[in-house]
């Protein structure tokens, strides 16, 4: 697992690529605790968002098991009326990156490409 400092550097590089990033965190799937977190909006409670998104991911994995799907979960995209939320697993599958971005500032393609590119640099 990369350390907090290197994860924060990755967050910075993603923000260089993507306009409108609200908050980014790497979250321990099991506990929902953040391993690194950065928010650009004081009213966005990243600890709460990370915790409940870990539950969301666990539920999705349960659904996949219930459906007997043999594929692996790579990422999850949630589209809100004014925000994109992207969840992408880190190698090993026990932690994930969670990113919230202002929908008016970016698009999903740029977001996914940038996150994939910079997360790859961690491995």
């Amino acid at each position: 697992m990369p350390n907090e400092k290197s994860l924060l550097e990755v967050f910075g590089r993603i923000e260089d690529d993507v306009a409108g990033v609200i908050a980014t965190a790497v979250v321990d799937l099991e506990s929902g605790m953040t391993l690194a977190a950065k928010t650009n909006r004081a009213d966005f409670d990243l600890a709460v968002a990370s915790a409940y998104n870990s539950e969301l991911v666990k539920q999705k994995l349960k659904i996949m098991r219930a459906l007997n799907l043999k594929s692996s979960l790579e990422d999850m995209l949630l589209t809100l009326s004014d925000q994109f939320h992207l969840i992408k697993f880190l190698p090993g599958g026990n932690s994930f990156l969670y990113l919230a971005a202002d929908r008016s500032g970016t698009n999903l393609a740029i977001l996914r490409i940038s996150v994939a590119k910079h997360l790859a640099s961690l491995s």
Partner: protein
Amino acid sequence: MAVLDPRSDTVVIRVVYDGAPMAGKSTSVSALGAGLGADVFSPTEVGGRTLYFDWLDYTGGLFEGRRIRCQIISVPGQATLAPRRRRLLESADAIVFVADSTPAGLNSDRGYLAGLYQVMARLDGPPVGVVLQANKRDHPQAVPIATIRSLLDEMGWRIGVIESVATEGIGVRETFVFAVRLALDRVRELMRAGHFPTAAPNVDTPQDLLNELKRSEDGSMEYAAASGLLHTRLSDVWQQPIASEALAQVVTDNLNPAPASVSRQTDAGGDYLPALPDERVASGMVWPPVDGRTVLHEIGQGKIQLTRSPEGAWTGFVNGRWQIHSRADAVYEDLEEGRSVLIQSARALAAKTRGRSLERCVVLAVDGHGKYRLWLIVRIDGTQQ
């Protein structure tokens, strides 16, 4: 002290930072607080030294659908305050031992680790997980991690080791999250045994803790703190009668550390290579729950060479210290089926190892191919490979 607080529907756990004076306990808690955006409260400090504790309150994460509230506390390191330190350690659900990686610091670490070990040995209930945060890794004379592991081996203590540079915040958060996992493993065990209380925590604020400590002390600690601040490390007070209680905790060993390699590698030369388990497996997937995760932490950092037998079983050795084995048929498509076998294996193992120190664990982990594989991990000596 873990409780389910009905007022806020949160699981309250306590993570205690222990270690020798100047090892970096307060620095680690401060760095953690800065990263988490939470303030650290220190009731009394003299010359930058903690006299009671540092307190950091953080709510984050989820356990069984409930928020996790962490009371993060560092102990005073001064030898003269050993009873205060012991009292705080006894209240922990997980402990981060901050070790000073410098050669001089390691001498102090040894005594404090021995003291911690003795405190842990006296505790009832599910084991309290301990992780060693090897601090000051940026120091030019920092001892190799293998030396620290050897020290732990000599004590017969199986705990995870994570490197850090607390002054730069490196490794601090990672250590904390690992400690939280250990604490949650303990909570799960308490729940299973029906010993997880639903109640408001006895200590809810730093002031509560301060009051509790003061109530339990008759003023002697105030005197000790005032008179003993010059004697900050156990070795400084070795001949001082004032630290008799601290000295009683100390076991002195002459350790001869040996180097070991620490890089991870898997290669079996076949088309199917199962993913290896590490300390991030979900709660309930490793037995014993707390100590097993600690073993997995070490396995996850080591170099593993897996080989497949003609029958299809997988075996590997980790740094000459552990053997990891999975039978050919120990693979399950269904998680519940795998867990049922895990429980059976754990029962058999518990019967076999009754009353003895942990030298093995079983774990169910994803195999990287959409299934679950059961692994048995056994401690070996270096000659058994």
